[in-house]
């Protein structure tokens, strides 16, 4: 069976019972993606499939044959860390780091949803085609990713800096001029 993981083609035989999470961690050795609850309740296992965030623990790998899967290992490039990874470091967006790979992948998927105008539970006007990336919107949209260390404020600060409505404003990211969304 063929999978495309972080732009690499991978052929492997799998038992249909294998979750996408176990395929990544146990068979391919990409242990960046974490197993927290293994039942959809924590978000630690979040990966991107064709750019959309999903929970790899509730996904049977066979369902994602041939699709583009991106894990935390696929976020950095030749130039270095993804801007969001740098922002997490800068804003103390973690303590133990266990939830971080899921937070990063989730936030990147979330930013794409926000950009294309998907409303959320806290969006006032459903007919608005553009939605302001307020902190309230960011926090609601990230509610599927729990952090047992309680680093949520730092996490939202980091996401706010890279994807929030104040991004690029004078003074806001002046301290970290190298970071661009």
């Amino acid at each position, binding site marked *: 069976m063929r999978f495309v993981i972080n732009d690499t083609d991978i052929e492997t035989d799998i038992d249909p*019972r294998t979750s996408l999470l176990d395929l990544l961690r146990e068979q391919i050795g990409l242990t960046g993606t974490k197993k927290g609850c293994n*039942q959809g309740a924590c978000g630690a296992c979040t990966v991107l499939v064709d750019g959309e965030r999903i929970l790899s623990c*509730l996904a049977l790998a*066979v369902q994602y044959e041939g699709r583009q899967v991106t894990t935390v290992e696929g976020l950095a490039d030749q130039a270095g860390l993804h801007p969001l990874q740098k922002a997490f470091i800068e804003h103390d967006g973690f303590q133990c780091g266990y939830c971080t790979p899921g937070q990063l992948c*989730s936030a990147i998927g979330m930013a794409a949803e926000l950009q294309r105008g998907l409303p959320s539970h806290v969006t006032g006007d459903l007919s608005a085609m553009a939605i302001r990336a307020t902190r309230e919107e960011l926090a609601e949209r990230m509610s599927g990713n729990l952090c047992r260390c309680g680093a949520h404020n730092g996490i939202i600060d980091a996401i706010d800096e890279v994807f929030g409505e104040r991004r690029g404003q004078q003074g806001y990211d002046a301290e970290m001029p190298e970071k661009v969304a």
Partner: protein
Amino acid sequence: MTPFSFARATDADDALRLASARGGRYLGGGTNLVDLMRETIERPTALIDVTGLSSTIGERDDGGLLIGAAVRNTAVAEHAAVRARYPALARAILSGASGQIRNMATVGGNILQRTRCAYFYDNAGSRCNKRNPGEGCDAIEGFNRMHAILGASPSCVATHPSDMCVALAAFDATAHLLGADGERRLPLTELHHLPNGRPDDETLLKPGELITAVELPAERWFARSTYRKVRDRASYAFALISVAAALKIDGDRISDVRLALGGVAHKPWRAHKAEAALRGAPATAEHFRDAARAELAGAVPLSHNGFKIELAERTIVAVLQELAGEIA
């Protein structure tokens, strides 16, 4: 997980063929079924992936909407016609689960998701009539804070956990089904059963029957609708109580209304008694309260969920006031 074979259906007929040949179960996003299989509460021997079936949302000639069963929950809530004409449906979906789960979950799977009763999930340690018919129900004397206040039975007091279905019930949605005997349609309010003596028998679907789509009627006034969910935390939690409502007012009287409740029963609960009390009545808080009380007169509290009765009353009144205020 017990072993199973996996096949991908190319269209609805193919799904039906595969299901009858293999005696299998349909697989949507897997967010409920995979979880239950891992707990060996569900043990299908074959899975037929139906996510490749209709995933379009189409306008009907009569002005209604037809939503394919494989449409992801996110796509329903994002659709411009749903947001403009059936806002309670978009809001209900957006108040459920998380962004990741909504990206995976399908309309068909959401309708047929099973209860979150903790004793149902506790395969090894608890008695549950839904899991093992006849063995008893540990929720009735147990921790039943999340459980039903309407339509429960001595066999089972579980609730149906879907938010989306509450809005579909309010809107008189119809499920399109395909089975060995051909196509048929069922009002969503009739699709799920109350528990009665057989809580394991949850729907009117026949073995192998497939949900192909959900149809929303063309009622323009449904644009004045909303969904409110009360839960233990601000996001990513199941409903204690939820209310979907649409309100039509002519002059100072209510000319039509749709009201459905979540978190209260084994199925999405259409509040027919409250609707009857509201039709023709003035749109005032007093009448909203009387109507809510008429609906909840038959509510029966369990040891830990008596608070739900007043919470339901207040939430109904608040939602109707919000909609009335919007119109005024």
